[in-house]
């Protein structure tokens, strides 16, 4: 069973978000990067678990990005991916990434593609759907559980206010949310082995971009908190009703 896991590099969760060039570019100054948590904690780990339980096949981590992303890719190998591929190009849009991954998946006999439900920077949640359409396969999104038996997967998909449990035949694409797996911390052996695992760099396929981010803004913050004495909750209720019109 060959499992492909899409991994993205994102600013770490406490990174200060700022923009430069008159609000047209993300300011990377001082920003530390991590593997997108949904990709790392859930998608990657569950793919590794499934491969381990079948006892055959491999887990391939794929990333679209520059050579500086190799550190994040090596972490995926340290956690347990067998090999990695980096498409050597800037990941400028969801469709660009989806087309790179689809191109690789079509040529490499992939049974399932895993990815996080979204990246924590652009929050697009689009790559999974695009990839599924490009591959013309089912897309099970927001998966919090997946079991595979033979070539059939049973997947629990989180929907608003509940879950849908569905069955589909491989190949398919799964996006991972909390609950799909438990985070794995790479151990020393994993880190050493990761250095010897293959990380293949391949050129991108051409994509015509249809969207562009033309400017960024930081939303205006709150102007100041109005403190209410704990003895006077009637006043808080009055403010919420009359001033904030929230109740």
């Amino acid at each position, binding site marked *: 069973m060959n499992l492909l896991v899409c991994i993205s590099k994102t600013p770490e*969760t406490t990174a200060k978000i700022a923009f430069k060039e008159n609000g047209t570019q993300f300011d990377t100054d001082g920003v530390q990067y991590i593997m997108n948590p949904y990709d790392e904690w859930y998608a990657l780990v569950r793919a590794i678990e499934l491969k381990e339980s079948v006892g055959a096949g491999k887990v391939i981590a794929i990333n679209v990005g520059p050579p500086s992303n190799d550190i994040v890719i090596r972490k995926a190998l340290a956690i347990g991916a067998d090999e990695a591929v980096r498409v050597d190009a800037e990941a400028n849009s969801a469709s660009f990434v989806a087309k790179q991954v689809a191109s690789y998946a079509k040529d490499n006999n992939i049974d399932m593609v895993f990815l996080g439900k979204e990246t924590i920077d652009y929050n697009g949640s689009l790559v999974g*759907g695009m990839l599924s359409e490009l591959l013309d396969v089912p897309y099970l999104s927001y998966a919090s559980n997946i079991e595979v038996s033979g070539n059939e997967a049973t997947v629990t998909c989180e929907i608003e*206010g509940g879950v849908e449990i569905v069955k589909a035949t491989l190949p398919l694409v799964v996006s991972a949310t909390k609950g799909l797996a438990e985070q794995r911390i790479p151990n020393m052996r994993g880190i050493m082995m990761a250095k010897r695992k293959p990380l293949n760099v391949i050129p991108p396929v051409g994509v015509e971009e*249809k969207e562009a981010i033309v400017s960024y803004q930081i939303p205006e913050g709150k102007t100041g908190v109005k403190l209410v004495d704990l003895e006077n909750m009637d006043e808080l209720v009055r403010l919420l009703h009359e001033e904030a019109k929230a*109740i």
Partner: protein
Amino acid sequence: MSVLVFAEAIKNQYKKSTFEVVLYGARLSKQLGTECIVLTNGNGDSASNLGVYGAQKILNFESENMHDNRMLTKVISAAVSQNGSTVVILSDNSKGKALAGRLAINLDAAVVSGAVALPNTNDGFKVHKSLFSGKAVGSYSLNADIKVISVAGNSIGLEEIGQAVSLESFDASAHSSTVSLVETKRVEGTVPLPEAELVVSAGRGMKAPENWGIIDELAGVLGATTACSRPVADTGWRPHHEHVGQTGIAIKPNLYFAIGISGAIQHLAGVNNSKTIVVINKDPEAPFFKAADYGVVGDLFDVVPRLIESLKKFKAS
């Protein structure tokens, strides 16, 4: 030309967020001088309610495979080509996001997910979307003949604009599904977090899971949905689906109560688009107070019962 809105009915009912996308589509169609067509799986009676929010033509289809986004993509795509639609509007929920990506490829369209306002169509076609889990907003320029937009919940205030509506049936029977539904489980009675207007959220300050009674009671009095911080979900005090924040659910309710939550940057990222924020914390230095509209400094086990009493008095008056 037309704007096509996909409005999902669940058991012949529409959620508030679905009415929002219909209104969004209606306003956009006015802006573009075109027609607002709504594709839906409701029955005739329930679907005609969509006219209240600006639907002009309703295309009604029947399907037992609403769980399959591959099948739905084919249905929506067929409606787009039959009606010459140039914009497709979806809800930005789990299904809408999956459909947005699929449709962008299927229709060779430009796409943005999680739009927070109507597009600016004066100079090109630009849409605002929330980024970095609410820490920033980006303006996306969409440059293709067809545009696909999923609209974030609570981005548009509902308004009844009443419209005469025509109802037609739409044949979706040619599109079969390869994904079978085993079971749907829904939590009954509460509004799901992404759609909730009132949210009561609690964190580690609660000290133990058995103390949640006052949170449930406060939520009950307000008619609010409960939420929690990440540490509380990770320790299993509360279910994962209640976790709001950067790695949980990002929400933007009308009113957000943060009780015993210090306000780590990752938590704030998921909730700072809430319209009004009330923070209750015994630590006056808690960072959350800087992001709040109203604050109460005090022991939550003292403050919350007092607040419940005041709210009960208010509701009774």
